[in-house]
């Protein structure tokens, strides 16, 4: 089972290594890890997708909280969140196949960000299932390159007290 955990961490060198090292040492299975700055220059937000059961998730949360540079941990299991993944994908696109590819891109609300004689680069964002589905649809055309950010997630405001 995949769970999303969000951690507010100190924006200092070595913190990413510290968190990643802890995950490795404890043999936790990470699906993705994204870290970026927040509006507070002293803090970064890390969004981690963990694979495991409830017991593993409980240990992951506690072990993260125990790390000195980790300020706050939010476990999104069972909570309504907005989760997004952003991908840049380069698809082989010879001119006579282009129209159907462009239709596909439009269906997925993607944006063409680069174009060449034989390829198109697309930016797509959305929930993980949408990203995975788009990759599947692109496979018959030939995928040259994929880069994904991994999931970021924020709890839905309506449910927050």
């Amino acid at each position, binding site marked *: 089972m995949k769970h999303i955990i969000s951690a507010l961490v100190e924006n200092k060198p070595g913190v990413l*290594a510290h968190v990643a090292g802890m995950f490795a040492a404890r043999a936790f299975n990470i699906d993705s890890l994204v870290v970026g700055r927040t509006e507070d220059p*002293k803090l970064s937000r890390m969004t981690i997708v963990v694979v495991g059961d409830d017991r593993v998730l409980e240990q992951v949360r506690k072990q993260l909280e125990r790390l000195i540079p980790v300020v706050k941990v939010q476990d999104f299991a069972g909570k309504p969140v907005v989760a997004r993944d952003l991908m840049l994908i380069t698809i082989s696109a010879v001119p006579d196949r282009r129209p159907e590819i462009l239709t596909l891109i439009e269906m997925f609300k993607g944006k063409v960000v680069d174009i060449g004689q034989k390829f198109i680069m697309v930016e797509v964002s959305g929930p993980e299932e949408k990203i995975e589905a788009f990759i599947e649809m692109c496979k018959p055309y030939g995928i040259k390159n994929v880069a994904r950010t991994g999931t970021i997630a924020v709890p839905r405001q309506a449910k927050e007290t």
Partner: protein
Amino acid sequence: MTTNSTTPASTPAQSAIKSGAQIVVDTLIEQGVDTMFGYPGGVVLPLFDKLYDAPIRFIVPRHEQGGCHMADGYARASGKVGVIITTSGPGACNLVTGLATAMMDSIPIVALTGQVRTELIGNDAFQEADTTGITRPITKYNSIVKDVKDLARTIREAFYIASTGRPGPVLVDIPVDVAVSKYSANGPVEMELPGYKLRTKGNARQISLAAQAINESKQPVLYVGGGVIIANATDQLRELAKKAHIPVTMTLLGLGSYDQREPESLDMLGMHGAAYANYAVQECDLLIAVGARFDDRVTGKVSTFASNAKIIHIDIDPTSISKNVRGDIPVVGDAKEILSELIKQVEFCERKRWFARIAGWKKKFPFCYDRDAATIKPQYVIDEICRQTKNSAIVTTGVGQNQMWTAQFYKFIGPRQLISSGGLGTMGYGLPAAIGAQIAKPDATVIDIDGDHSFNMTMTELATAVEHNLPIKVCIMNNGYMGMVRQWQQLFYNKRYSKSYLHNPDYAAVARAIGATGITVDKKEDVPKAIKTMLSEKKPCVVDFKIEREENVWPMVAAGKSISEMDGLDVLESLA
């Protein structure tokens, strides 16, 4: 755990322009450091220059690993933070085993390491190592100070983190150019630890549930670990055990938290623990875990551990709760505070049947050995040491059989007596830890009960003991083998003693060559007198006991077995 001062107020001296090295020394003194360990080197020359005439007692080991174990033994014996300083590269790398040892047993240490100049970092410079990278998994926290203005704050934070909550080793890496940079502090320097919050007070409702469970139980057991000693909660433990009338079993690191001469004591449990402790845990209806982490040496096959019991788990570290064994009533917080609250809510219960059952097990399966044997039994030596020191010495150990026999046969009566590498099981810990303990407690009798090969790993530190006139005593249980390895090879590998027998020097002669007293004992009848002589020695003293070659530690819970499935009970029964 005594918390070192963290007052950020600046004194007039602090506003003057100082070098990084001076800031380090001043901060150490401000933190109450009056003793430290360390080894010089290139990138710490500026620091050592300031230490030359600083009011800090400084002990130089013969190897940085020894120095780290000394700081560790000092911390365990005194309750203070142990401090060690080494140079970069090989000096820092030599700390790894010592830091991992302290990390596993939750011991407060602050390690200061020199580092190459900031602009050379990452360039494969001379004596450069990625110290913070290497020590990250084995420290509670570490950091590298790249700007001299962060130096005082980082060191203060290091002491705070090391000594509070669940203690542990903290490393601060100091590049040499930072140590020589000049800085003038403008006013007080606050710590900046937004991610470190201490929680000491237990949840009132949880404590109430725990008290209720205790009052309703018929066959409870207190399972107590090193955390109770770290929390200085042994008085509260005693009061709880007496008031509610509950038997107490201890882990290796918990030994001494309850007086083993008292009737409630079940002594040590686990792989080489007492049969009566293991049976009590397996049969209990309530297991009250305090400052213990359900380590695999204790639980045996985890799914079978205390399977009839409801489990209360009192610990300061939430990650320990429900990590290996499900805690039914978790209480997170400081043991002393929580036990004090719990005592108010529990009632006395006679539990006549339960104590009678336990007495039966104690009678049938005591720790024992063949007293009529012609050879020197290690258990006899330890028995005699315990008797002659009246159970009140500080005892350090090596790892393996020597360690287990000490845990079984030296009956500890108070906290901070047994100083042993439990979690990491570091051979060579005994001698340097004894040195650290003796420095912390100059008037105490400090004895390292060691194995021949454990001792051999760090015996170079005898020179340190001689240099500082420390009257430590080393008792080598010399059987020529790595005893515990040999025992396993006997039991599980058909006596194929692969590489577990090594040539030993004449340890008494080695001791004398280094400047200590050396005694060899190879006859049983000479044992009491040798111990008596050793105890009255003013110089460091090594006694080499030529013990029974193939004696085993019983009982034993083999790998994968439940703790009630012990081997060697027949041996104990026949000798009882």
